[in-house]
């Protein structure tokens, strides 16, 4: 909103007209390119996850156990690639294809914790592990509790 100034604004354009002008000058995201890249990167990451599930099934885990183990393994890789400084490059290219898979979740845990290590291990690393993961856990767990309660009353 415009400031209350002592003189009239010198500019001959109103804030509303400026908003329209700014929109026309601001470059739009390259949506088609982003979608194709997100599809490819997300697909590859999930395919790798599937290979890991198959591997764990082959060595004797049940379907559910293999799925859990695969998730944990992907989390490990996401965290490792973030530590190595590689995941931000994947993210720049893949967008949602690297953010939405659980590897992106791991990246959102490691990157702030690593960044704030210089502020100490308790208030730096410890606290910052959850800047993005926190909301995910809060809303995910809360949703599951509400769903559980509803399920209880339905039966």
């Amino acid at each position, binding site marked *: 909103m415009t400031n209350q100034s002592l003189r009239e604004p010198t500019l001959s354009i109103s804030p509303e007209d400026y908003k329209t002008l700014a929109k026309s000058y601001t470059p739009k995201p390259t949506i088609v390119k982003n979608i194709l890249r997100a599809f490819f990167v*997300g697909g590859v990451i999930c395919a790798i996850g599937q290979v890991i599930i198959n591997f764990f099934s082959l060595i004797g885990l049940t379907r559910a156990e293999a799925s859990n183990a695969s*998730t944990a393994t992907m989390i490990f890789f996401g965290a490792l690639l973030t530590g190595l400084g590689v995941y931000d490059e994947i993210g720049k290219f893949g967008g949602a294809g690297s*953010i939405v898979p659980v590897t992106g979740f791991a990246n959102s845990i*490691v990157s702030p914790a690593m960044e704030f290590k210089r502020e100490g*291990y308790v208030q730096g690393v410890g606290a910052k592990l959850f800047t993005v993961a926190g909301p995910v856990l809060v809303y995910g767990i809360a949703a599951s509790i509400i769903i559980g309660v509803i399920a209880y009353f339905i039966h």
Partner: protein
Amino acid sequence: MFNMILPAFFVGGLICVIGQLLMDLTKPSFTPAHVLVTFVTGGAILGALGIYEPLVKFAGAGATIPLSGFGYSLAKGAIEAVGKRGILGALSGGVEATAVGIAAAVFFGYLMSITFNPKG
């Protein structure tokens, strides 16, 4: 070793495309954190409605690796625990079902954070 890879690739890719559209078409205040919260909550709701289960059966990792899969596990765990244990299962079920993922995230997250430094 390689079965179900193509469905995993396609479904996983499509779910990520939904995320990309959310990122590109919404206001800038809708950050990646908001995208992740949407996915986990969305996965929980679809899981509760029974819509996500067939996707998991068809595409395996294509449905479980995206964060919506995490929401699905949370919802499924809560519903199953309520069936076995009554109302307390609503509180414990979700967290128990995803305990491996949460513990892995915390532990590996911590390990990598203290081992490496940001490169800028």
